[in-house]
């Protein structure tokens, strides 16, 4: 069964360094209400709900079940959860809608990094035999990738600084640091503060709808023309860190190369990763890359990838884009990558 599926609404919270005065569900709930209000739907109208989060961030087992209180999940609703970025929850919801099992889906993601130390938390996703016992933190691994790019002549420190500066010059009111941010000192050389994402808590939600339902709910739906995700070998030393074949393959399968896009929302938490992604996705100089500021402007863990899809869709809703690419990543050094191609109806 082939059905057209669209992103019909997007909402997000501010991304804040600390949200200690609210619980996860208290942080998430206003975003859920916001996204539903944009469509006029109530939680009871939603056919399928899927979420992305990680218990490791806040160190609370099964915290996603408490977050479900915010969608009114009792009596039980049709729902699912991925311990991944919400972009992969959107993938699951998209498949569900394609099968015809539901006509609408609510997809949300949230992350509270403030209770823990996210650089250390992320070491726990690494190969437990050969890598995790060394506790290499997320910045260290990204720095190895950045140095490989510098050695290959693909970028240099000033070019990386320019990516950080451009990202944070966004007018996105949801960005965490805004305006000029100094390059700062080395965190792990060659990456400086300005090359690294801000650490923040936040939540994101989108609503998907199929066919005519999408047109009922949104003036200009962002149709998902293609969606695919691919992963690379587990061992960092097997990979060419200067390239992202998994992104390229996902983009190809999603149809990204069939026609040019005008906008790309890339999930590149570290400046050097934008260099890799631009090349893998063959983005020309005329493509608007990360008008939202991307993950260098706001990086709520587990939600920043879904935010890329939401931001791209919102530009189509507002008539600022006709064909946009959205990308999400997971794991160290762009380990796993998802690409969505979104289009608005012709104007």
């Amino acid at each position, binding site marked *: 069964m082939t059905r057209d599926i669209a992103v019909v609404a997007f909402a997000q919270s501010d991304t804040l360094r600390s949200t*200690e*005065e*609210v*619980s996860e*569900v*208290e942080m998430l*709930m206003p975003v*859920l*209400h916001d996204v539903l209000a944009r469509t006029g739907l109530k*939680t009871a109208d939603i056919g399928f709900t899927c979420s992305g989060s990680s218990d*490791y961030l*806040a*160190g*609370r087992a099964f915290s996603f079940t*408490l977050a*479900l*209180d*915010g*969608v*009114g*999940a*009792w*009596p039980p609703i049709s729902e699912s959860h991925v311990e991944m970025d919400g972009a992969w929850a959107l993938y699951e919801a998209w498949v569900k809608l394609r099968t015809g099992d539901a006509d609408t889906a609510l997809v949300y993601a949230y992350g509270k990094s403030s*209770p*823990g130390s996210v*650089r*250390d*938390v992320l*070491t*726990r996703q690494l190969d*437990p*035999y*050969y*890598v*995790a*016992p*060394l*506790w*290499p*933190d997320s910045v*260290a*691994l990204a*720095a*190895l990738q*950045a*140095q*490989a790019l510098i*050695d290959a002549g693909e970028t240099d420190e000033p070019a990386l600084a320019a990516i950080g500066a451009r990202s944070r010059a966004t007018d996105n009111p949801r960005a965490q640091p805004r305006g000029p941010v100094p390059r700062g000192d*080395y965190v*792990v*050389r*060659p*990456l400086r503060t300005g090359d690294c994402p801000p650490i923040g808590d936040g939540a994101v939600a989108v609503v998907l709808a199929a066919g005519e339902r999408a047109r009922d709910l949104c003036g200009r739906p962002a149709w998902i023309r293609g969606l695919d995700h691919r992963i690379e*070998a*587990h*061992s*960092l*030393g*097997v990979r060419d*860190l200067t390239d992202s074949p998994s992104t390229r393959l996902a983009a190809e399968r999603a149809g990204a190369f069939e026609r040019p896009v005008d906008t790309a929302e890339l999930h590149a938490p570290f400046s050097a990763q934008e260099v890799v992604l631009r090349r893998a996705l063959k983005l020309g100089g005329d493509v608007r890359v990360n008008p939202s500021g991307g993950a260098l402007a706001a990086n709520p863990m587990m939600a920043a990838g879904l935010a890329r899809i939401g931001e791209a869709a919102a530009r189509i809703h507002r008539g600022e884009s006709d064909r946009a690419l959205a990308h999400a990543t997971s794991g160290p050094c762009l380990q796993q990558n998802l690409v969505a191609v979104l289009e608005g109806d012709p104007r």
Partner: protein
Amino acid sequence: MSAVLKAPVTVEFPFTRSLGPVQSAFLTGLRERVVLGVRTGDGRTLVPPVEYDPVTAEEIRDVVEVAPTGTVTTWAWNHAPRRGQPLAGPFAWVLVRLDGADTALLHALDAPGPDAVHTGMRVRVRWAEERTGAITDIACFEPYDGEAGQLTGGTGEFENPVGGIVAPARLDYTYSPGRAQTAYINALADRRTVGERCPSCRKVYVPPRGACPTCGVATEERVEVGPGGTVTTFCIVNIKAKNLDIEVPYVYAHIALDGADLALHGRIGGIPYDQVRMGLRVEPVWTEGGRYPDHYRPTGEPDGDYDMYKELL
């Protein structure tokens, strides 16, 4: 608004992981100061070795020795090491392609400073003094000027191969309970049990979690409930918990406090465990300085009627 409550929490586990044949050979080799790789079908040598070809998914078992010397393929200077990392002082993270290998291994390089490190530099393994069959048997790499290191002629067959590793994991957090639970905890310290009412369905949740799970809206109106309540269901605990100074058997129960639409749980005391029953009327017992009820005890009132609490089971 009252101050945010905070408490440190350490989540700590020793993960016991078993090894497959190739991982076992590699880690046992490290214990014996031998570095082993694995050969793929197309003749490449992977170090560290894996059990399935990352390209073809073919099972690979052909273990071969490589030298303890190699070349840095990329690096990153870590001026501020974090807990658990291989060296306490500043060092470089490196990917090292050992002589004889086609892929690179992640580890630390002990070097005096970033100016002493570059891609393409030659390094060798510095072995840990005590080795157990773990990646940390390589203490780190160190700069090295000479030729490729000698092979030992090891075959990958060792006495007492390691069959598993114990990988301790520890993460430190600072918990804060959020708006609704902060109010609940603060009220408990005053010996009051305060729930929150859903503005939509009017149910009172105790303890409040901030949202009504039926309506998906915030609960805000605070409602004091209890102190008396009714046991809705219970279990008899026969296994003594570590670090818990309570004699077994004891009863742990769901208790619907008067005025609450959700049962909370607590221990029942002041009555033999085999006389606790559904419908038993109880009240909280506070200890001197305690911030929450130590347990609940019978009030002596007649038992509650099943119809009164059947929705709260």
